[in-house]
């Protein structure tokens, strides 16, 4: 009894850990993985498996090379890998998919100090890199349930009316592996909310501002919300802890900014999709968004005792 541990209070800790939060995100992503496999076939699952495995490997190796403590076990790299797989088309060449993971983990995440330190969303940035670097690779693929004769443009490119809202909701449209099935994404979102992994602020601000912006630009609101990567981005990418603000006001502005930029790109730019760019642009100003509002401590300013 002569050696006692001493530390600053508190001396007990809650059950939440980085690892079990990341596990919750993986569970929330599961419906999207399943839906992607159902609609795009086994090849889709293979893409996700490759990006996931190469992301973890990239994290593991880079921590060793940098002589830092190992963080691959915290599952954050696995989450980035799975998300990247879900925002690639099912027929994406596997070597390119793996390269995307390396970019996401090594360049975007580890070079800035690893988990929590990266200012840009790894999966989102990697997708943009792939999009620009390999323009020959298709940006979407057809689902297995579609006849060859059917148009193979994405709902966004084909424009309003090409696909029914029901098809958009269940995911039977051309697109990326995890982005098409709105039902699966919403299921994941509900799980994240129930487990208190995320607050609804960013997602709702994103979807809400996108809806208003679509209305202003004369677009069909439900069609815009359900097509492309908007829903997936709003639920799984814009809510990333490290690259979004921590304060409520910051989150609100972040989400609204994402929504406005997404629709502006969709309507006025010559890009196939605006979600990744919107999130990346807002990522960059995210640290400053927290400085807009200093929460008043309890009892300071308004609301203090009469």
């Amino acid at each position, binding site marked *: 009894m002569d050696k006692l541990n001493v*530390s600053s*209070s508190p001396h*007990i800790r*809650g059950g*939440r850990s980085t690892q079990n939060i990341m596990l919750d995100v993986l569970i929330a992503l599961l419906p999207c993985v399943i839906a992607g496999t159902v609609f795009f076939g086994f090849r889709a699952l293979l893409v996700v498996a490759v990006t996931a495995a190469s992301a973890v490997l990239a994290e593991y190796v880079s921590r060793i090379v940098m002589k830092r403590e190992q963080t691959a076990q915290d599952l954050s790299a696995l989450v980035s890998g799975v998300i990247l797989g879900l925002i690639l088309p099912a027929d994406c060449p596997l070597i390119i998919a793996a390269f995307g993971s390396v970019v996401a983990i090594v360049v975007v995440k580890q070079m800035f100090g690893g988990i929590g*330190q990266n200012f840009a969303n790894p999966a989102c940035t990697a997708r943009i890199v792939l999009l620009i670097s390999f323009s020959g690779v298709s940006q979407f693929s057809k689902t297995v349930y579609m006849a060859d004769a059917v148009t193979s443009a994405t709902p966004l490119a084909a424009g309003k009316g090409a696909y029914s809202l029901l098809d958009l909701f269940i995911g039977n449209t051309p697109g990326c592996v995890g982005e098409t099935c709105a039902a699966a994404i919403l299921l994941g979102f509900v799980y994240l909310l129930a487990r208190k992994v995320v607050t609804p602020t960013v997602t709702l601000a994103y979807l809400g501002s996108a809806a208003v912006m679509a209305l202003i630009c004369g677009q069909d609101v439900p069609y815009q919300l359900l097509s492309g990567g908007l829903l997936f981005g709003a639920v799984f990418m814009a809510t990333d*802890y490290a690259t*979004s603000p921590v304060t409520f006001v910051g989150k609100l502005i972040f989400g609204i900014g994402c929504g406005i930029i997404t629709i502006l790109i969709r309507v006025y730019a010559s890009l196939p999709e605006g979600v990744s760019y919107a999130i990346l642009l807002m990522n960059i100003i995210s640290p400053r968004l927290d400085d807009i509002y200093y929460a008043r401590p309890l009892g300071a300013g308004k609301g*203090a*005792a009469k």
Partner: protein
Amino acid sequence: MEQAVFPKKPYSGRGGAKTPHFKNTCGRESISVPLPGMIVLPVQQHIGAPCVPCVKAGDRVLVGQVIADTTAFVSAPVHSSVSGTVKKIARIRMPNGSPCDAVFIEPDGLQELSPDIKPPEVNDRESLLKAVRASGCVGLGGAGFPTHVKLNVTPDKADTLIVNGAECEPYITCDHREILENSWNIMSGLYTLQELLGFRRVIIGVENNKPDAIELLESIAESETYDPHDRIKVLKLRTNYPQGAEKVLVRSCTGRTVPAGKLPLDAGCVVINITTLSFIADYLKTGVPLIKKRITVDGSAVGMRGNYIVPVGVPITNVLDFCKVKNAEKVLMGGPMMGVAVSDLSTPVLKQNNAILAFSGKDAEIPPETACINCGRCITSCPMRLQPVRIQRAAARKDVAELEKLGVMNCIECGCCTYNCPAKRYITQQMRVAKAILRESKQK
């Protein structure tokens, strides 16, 4: 006086932590701890001016005799908890690291009472405050603020007395036991304070995980005979740490907000711990000053968990031996959320102690710190609406202006941010560092 208005249910608060309860010891009758070979009585067991010893080595002292006192207002005298001989007066280190003079007394085992012990005559505000000061009473919830200073209020300044029976810290059940074992004292204390100090209403706040205590207190508060003017009500509080923190409690019980940097009095409230109240009533009845304390002894290294009546000044090691503590690797004075980890087991039990917790194995480990993932849980869990993650970053770069802007001085060090942090970061510790940085910059 007009009829008092009471809230039907507690006002909602913000943040906090879903800590486990671990109220293992609430069903056990309190046991007295035998006298040790030496009693150590620090001359400062309260917030405020330290006392000066008024005995010297070789003196014989009796139970309840004043051994240290001062003329300073914010202070409380120290009484001997035993009869015996003063061996020496020496400097010891308090659990928080500060040095303090202490009177070492060797008990003779006779426990001869001092002739000074007689019930005080109390019939108005002044005589009550004088008696409370003479009793050596300090806030027994843990802070140790001299009670007579806190009670020095007039009805136009404070209309509400809040009795703190929340006991939100895990493990600790000593207030709960006090309610069950000494309800007569609590009742008499309630009336004395309400009548002599002229409070319009008295709210007893108890967390709803103590149904038997609530039932007992309600039998006092709802009774026609005991509470004819309906001035006292029990308020069942949501069990949510830190419900018992003064500012949180004022908000839950009255809906009022204590202004930043001010006291509950600035919101018209006086908050008093339920054991303190019970002690005052006991003192008015018997005249025995604050010389013993009920403490909860619990934790994974404790063989005989329970509540113990311990004379003030008994070294912790004697209490641990009596409670069959084996291989303790971490010993806390106070609860697991705000208690202090002691480095030296010869440290004595102080007046304001309410628990000694001893842990071994996994419970004693300090989890390794990992990188912040920016999740914002520290912000949502802060009952004071601070932004710990930003304060921590500002503290790391010693940005005094930013710390000021973020209001770090409002931190009550409740530990919710650290408890909820998935990266296991030592946030509360860094909040203390941040406060120190700000304090230092102001001194320059």
